[in-house]
């Protein structure tokens, strides 16, 4: 089994089970909503992939000439064009593309080694996943905790500091921030590695199953590999996580402040419940709906941020791959990656909607 299939299984099965659970236990309105969302996701991915198909071909530039370079002769170009099916009429190419998409046949890359896209994704997607999941956790933990803390101590030095932090951190360019962390913790203090996912020598001892190195090292009991993967994860995760935390601090703070002014909070305080419990136990939970909405919206921004973070830290993920392949006009690779990203964003968006219904019984569909 390809690592990417393995990962999709790991992610997909719990999601499918959750969907089934909510579907069965939910109201008729919720069921209708889930079915509508699923029905809309498919045409959305299809439309996006089709747009990418045509935009890539409208853009100037040619994958064949790009791959052959100036040495390529007209005969070589023609030969390669035939091999890649680019000599066929555009609508025929589009028909083949649609057929391949329906059968989940991503095809082969048009440049470099002409490898199957599924193999390239199997190597790249787990790396991106291994970066964005901990980064999201860092962003959420700091964002929600910081926002709540600022709200609880409104108009104090803590509040002002955290507001200032959220503005500064959100406006920092990721590439500059990442470079500063590399120079400080890598070059100056020699505490952390600055590049890659794992130590190259230790990597030779790791047998990848999922290509998620932390999971693979745990599965194989390779603890030095786990330690190395964790240490390599620190700087990229902090870079991406901190930059994204700013917006969560602001949104959480505002919503917790609003919630803290509600009558039931005053009632809780009147009953003598500790302030800590009032803030974190009552106000925060009820202020989470907009934060969860933001999580759904941030997925696309997270993926965009991952492009830069991957480049700075030599993280061989999907972001760098996409940039590289757009430059080379690798039509098949770009179409596949965009479709994959669209599917990911759509699924997370669906997941967020389902979480609404679990968190707040008042939410009706």
């Amino acid at each position, binding site marked *: 089994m390809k690592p990417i299939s393995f990962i999709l299984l790991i992610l997909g099965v719990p999601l499918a089970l959750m969907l089934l659970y909510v579907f069965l236990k939910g109201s008729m309105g919720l069921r209708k909503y889930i079915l509508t969302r699923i029905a809309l996701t498919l045409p959305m991915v299809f439309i996006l992939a089709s747009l990418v198909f045509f935009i890539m071909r409208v*853009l*100037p*530039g*040619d*994958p064949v*000439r*790009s*791959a052959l*370079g*100036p*040495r390529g*002769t*007209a005969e*070589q*170009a023609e*030969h*390669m064009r035939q*091999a890649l099916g680019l000599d066929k009429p555009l609508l025929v190419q589009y028909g083949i593309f649609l057929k391949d998409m329906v059968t989940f046949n991503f095809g082969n890359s048009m440049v*470099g*080694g*002409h*490898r199957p896209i599924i193999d*390239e994704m199997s*190597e*790249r997607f787990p790396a991106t996943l291994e970066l964005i999941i901990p980064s999201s956790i860092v962003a959420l933990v700091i964002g929600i905790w910081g926002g709540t803390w600022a709200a609880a101590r409104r108009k104090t030095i803590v509040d002002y500091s955290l507001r200032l932090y959220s503005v500064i951190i959100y406006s920092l360019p990721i590439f500059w921030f990442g*470079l500063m962390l*590399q*120079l400080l913790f*890598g*070059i100056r203090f*020699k505490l952390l*590695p*600055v*590049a*890659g*996912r794992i*130590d*190259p*020598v*230790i*990597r*030779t*001892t790791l047998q*990848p199953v999922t290509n998620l190195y932390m999971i693979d090292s745990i599965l194989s*009991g*390779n*603890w*030095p590999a*786990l*330690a190395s993967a964790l240490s390599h994860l620190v700087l990229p995760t902090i870079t991406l996580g901190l930059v994204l935390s700013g917006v969560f601090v602001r949104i959480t703070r505002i919503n917790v402040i609003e919630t803290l002014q509600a009558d039931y909070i005053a009632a809780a305080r009147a009953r003598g419940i500790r302030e800590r419990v009032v803030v974190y136990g009552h106000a925060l939970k009820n202020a989470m709906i907009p934060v969860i909405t933001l999580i759904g919206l941030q997925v696309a921004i997270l993926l965009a941020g991952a492009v830069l973070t991957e*480049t*700075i*830290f*030599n993280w*061989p993920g999907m972001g*760098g*791959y996409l940039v590289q392949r757009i*430059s*080379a*006009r690798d039509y098949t690779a770009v179409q596949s990656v965009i479709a994959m990203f669209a599917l990911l964003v759509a699924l997370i968006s669906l997941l967020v909607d389902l979480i609404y219904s679990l968190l707040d019984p008042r939410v009706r569909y």
Partner: protein
Amino acid sequence: MKNKLQMILAALIVAVMVLTACQPKPAEKVTITIGVTDQIASLDSADAYATHDWELLKNIGEGLLVWKPGSASELIPGIAQDMPTVSEDGLTYTFKLKPGIKFADGLELTAPMYAQQLNRLLTIGPSCPNDVADALAIPYVESITAPDDSTLVFKLKVPIAYFPQILASAPYLPSHPDKFPVDQCVLFPEAPIYGVGPWYISQYTQNEQLVLEPNPYYQGIRKPQVDQIIIRYFSDPQTMALAVQNGEIDIAWRFLDPELIDQLRGVEGLTVGDIEGGFIRYLIINHTMPPMDDPNVVKAFASLIDRDAIVDTVYKGAATLLYSMNPPGFLGATDAFDTMYKAPDVAAANAYLAASGYDENNKCAIELWYPPDHYGAATAAWVELIKQQLEAANFKVELKAQEWSTYVTALTGGESYQVGVLGWFYDYPDPSNYLDPFVYNGGMGTNVTVPAEGSPYGQPINEKAQQLVDLLAQADVETDLDARTELYRQAQDVYADLVVTLPIIILSEHITYRSNIHGSPEYGSVETLNIATNLEFNYSMLTKTP
């Protein structure tokens, strides 16, 4: 509940720490890690046509002839017993194989097996994606046969003076029959990948790393000195520079920008070796597009390029002036452009322009194109300098940037720009590879010839172009060294007179390494880790001290 969670978390952390401490470390191997910003495009010698792919293939393989480590001029027998016997008509090359040549899995290489593998190049080679065969085999080789177990015979289509150099290139390396079937290109076979050279590829992950281990059966002069070489792939030169500073890699190889090299020179514990490489930068001129179809305009252009200023200002001295497409050190190399134009000469340039009706009130307008994403950040800086140099005379220059895939499509697809920036590195170290491609069959966009059916050279656009084609064609087959040298000298003069292309600089390559990495004192320069101007990097020369 909360306390329980905290306890479970603490227990998990302790468990991981204990397990980490108890885990036996992997056996200590002496490993050298080399960082590169290249990517692997193909590991099939019948297909591969990229510098990095060739570097890997030449480290896992060994051909009949090889370049002596540390030398760019001395060809020596590799797996051949001796230099070839050449027939009187120059069409037949016969080699005897050394006995006991083995792949890293113990399979013995015989001449029939080698011939069968080389014939892949002629049969399936042209259908492989990178199609090295059409450049380095099909035009030259008629047949490859093995009359017995140790004899290999190459029959050529025409006598080729530089055929031994071609034979030393990667397409002529023996490949393992189990991994590379005769009827199929296999760009990325599963590791391990065995060759008959000093190393074999034990594992690799695209875009991440490739691991080389010693071939236990290797008997040649390039015996590995360490247990393992790891090639680590980088997407960003800046990160590679930080990684070598931080000790995450031992060597930072191609490519680091001139600014990064400058920074690394000042870092304690790092050495930067400068290699006078064969990578050249030049301007390609479309001779059929006005105003570049006017000989006076191209001569005026050539009279204004101040290469010294480019090398000093942009490359801080880390590049060499180039006054002929045939670089210094190559057979018959001259300074034809310097002798002819003595640039910068504004008065001469204006005189040429005046002869074609251009003056201060009627400046010659040209567009100068370059790809900012392909040849490094320095390109934008030096084209800006060229613009200033041209505008010192009666030129009006508009700089135009375009990303590589669009740029190269237009440049080679017949809708070429007036003037554009390109780079070149040879396939085999011979003047023919620096001159012929820019002249024959359209000359990659120079259009001094027009591709013609049935002609290997194309139809020259004027008498001088005809003279140039004749000289180059004679030099291709001339086997007498002195006569060949003379032909190239004459050809370079005609080339400069026509200003087929405008050579600008040769870029020095740089290798940055940590203080515990050493080259071999036996071969070439230790400072450059034995890499000569042909940029062949023999990993076997490397040693590492604790």
